[in-house]
């Protein structure tokens, strides 16, 4: 079983990112689950969300404590939350940032998801960009299914732009 933890702030799309991950994995022929852990309900507050992917039905319902992957949607959270908490030895972390002076642990990679989001979506909602990057770096979900789910989740121009943003992130590495 692969476990993923998302760190974001209310309104950034961490919960949707986890849900999209579960839907993409299911489309890929796997079993999946995703759920959020909300702090206080307000925009900007730290939010966690979790996703699990497995070849058999998921039999656990507690939070993810030992993730294989962590995605950080907002680098401001690095001062607030221990995003590495419980990370498996072979686990990896993807962080949305443009800073080069962060003291990151090994197995961390960064992406300017905000830049890609602002350019393609016009807003700092980075979930689909992060998932494009995750699809490439982890190989746990396929880009084709990701684009399909983006098209089912959003409509019109919004779907088109999100699919493009995910593709750009995927191609970047």
């Amino acid at each position, binding site marked *: 079983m692969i476990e993923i933890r998302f760190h974001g702030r209310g309104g950034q799309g961490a*919960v949707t990112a986890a*849900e999209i991950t*579960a*839907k993409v994995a*299911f489309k890929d022929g796997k*079993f*999946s*689950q*995703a*759920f*959020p*852990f*909300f702090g206080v*309900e307000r925009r900007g507050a730290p939010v966690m969300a979790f996703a699990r992917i497995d070849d058999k039905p*998921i*039999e*656990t*319902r*507690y*939070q993810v*404590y030992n993730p294989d992957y962590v995605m950080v949607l907002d680098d401001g959270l690095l001062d607030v939350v221990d995003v590495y908490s419980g990370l498996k030895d072979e686990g990896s972390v993807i962080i949305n940032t443009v800073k080069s002076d962060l003291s990151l642990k090994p197995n961390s990679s960064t992406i300017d998801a905000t830049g890609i989001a602002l350019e393609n979506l016009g807003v700092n909602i980075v979930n689909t960009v992060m998932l494009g990057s995750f699809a490439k770096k982890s190989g746990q979900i396929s880009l084709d299914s990701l684009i399909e789910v983006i098209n089912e989740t959003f409509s019109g121009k919004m779907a088109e732009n999100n699919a493009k943003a995910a593709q750009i992130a995927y191609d970047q590495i």
Partner: protein
Amino acid sequence: MVVKVITSNQAVAEAVKLSKPKVVPVYPITPQTTISEYLAQYVADGDLDAEYIRVESEHSAISASIGASGAGVRVFTATSSQGLMLMHEIVYAAAGMRLPIVMADANRAISSPINIWNDQQDSIAQRDAGWIQLYCENAQESLDTIIQAYRIAENEDVLLPTMVCLDGFYLTHTVEPTEIPESDKVDSFVGEYVPKYSFLNPNEPKSLGTLADPEYYMEARYEIDEALNNSLKVISDVGKEFGEIFGREYGLIDPYKCEDAEYVLIAMGSICTTLRSVVNEYREKGEKIGLLKIRAYRPFPVEAIKEALSGVKRVGIIDKNISLGVGGALYNDILAKLDINAYNFIVGLGGRDITPKDMDEIVEKTKNPVKDITWIGLKED
């Protein structure tokens, strides 16, 4: 039939759409809110032909449900936590008036302190009201149980409101693969609602919920109790028939590896998923342990539980609620009705996550009991 990756809230809304209620009075409250949003959307899009009433409170939501059900149509409402507390007075009235309302409760803790996260205190606090209470384990069961709830509530031997309970966030906000049954199959399973007693007919005027003096009140209460007892068989029958048609059978309880078990854990709701894998883990180590999931909490299926636990040495009863001063509600019900060596674990109040370490502690303390009632996951200092 399609499989969608959806939350239990969406599964409930899909089931409501398939069950075709005519009136849906709802007031939004976390973590139930998306149920009310999906239903509003279905009605606005013409996918559900119902009157959606945007009431000004939960007290009004259940009152409008009584009005509509009394007038003779199928009704759905949903709430959570403080909303259910506000309904409390009318929750009793709905059972007393024998109205087959179906209500989803997104299980959430009760103030104070204020808390939006999961436990089952809200529905447990309504356990004596005369409603049927069914607790769900996953999104599929949430969907399937709403559909069955109409058949159970509307059965002539029952005619009682039914509460379908789903754990806040652990189910309401968790997406997982869920089968959506075909509309025509559900149509023929649920059927058209034909009210037997309560309907608005000017040629045959009736009063509902009137005064009963000491001459009559006890009989009215006795009949509710009888109806709840009758519902035991109806819940079983409907669950079995559902299985024949949709391939997923349901009962009052769901025993797992209890036949040869020395120790059995007993629980309700979403925690049963994890507990089943805990049982598997300990079975691999050669431990004779089982799980008894209680699906119907009201009526309380005493005979079914007795049968499932025959030969069991000791039980660990897991409560996501606390009847303050006396222990968990499920624990006390089992102590009252069964002659068995039972220990109680209070878990997950206000959304405290129940970790693998907590599960191990529960198993260990069921095998080697320390005290009658143990709070699991309490901070030490």
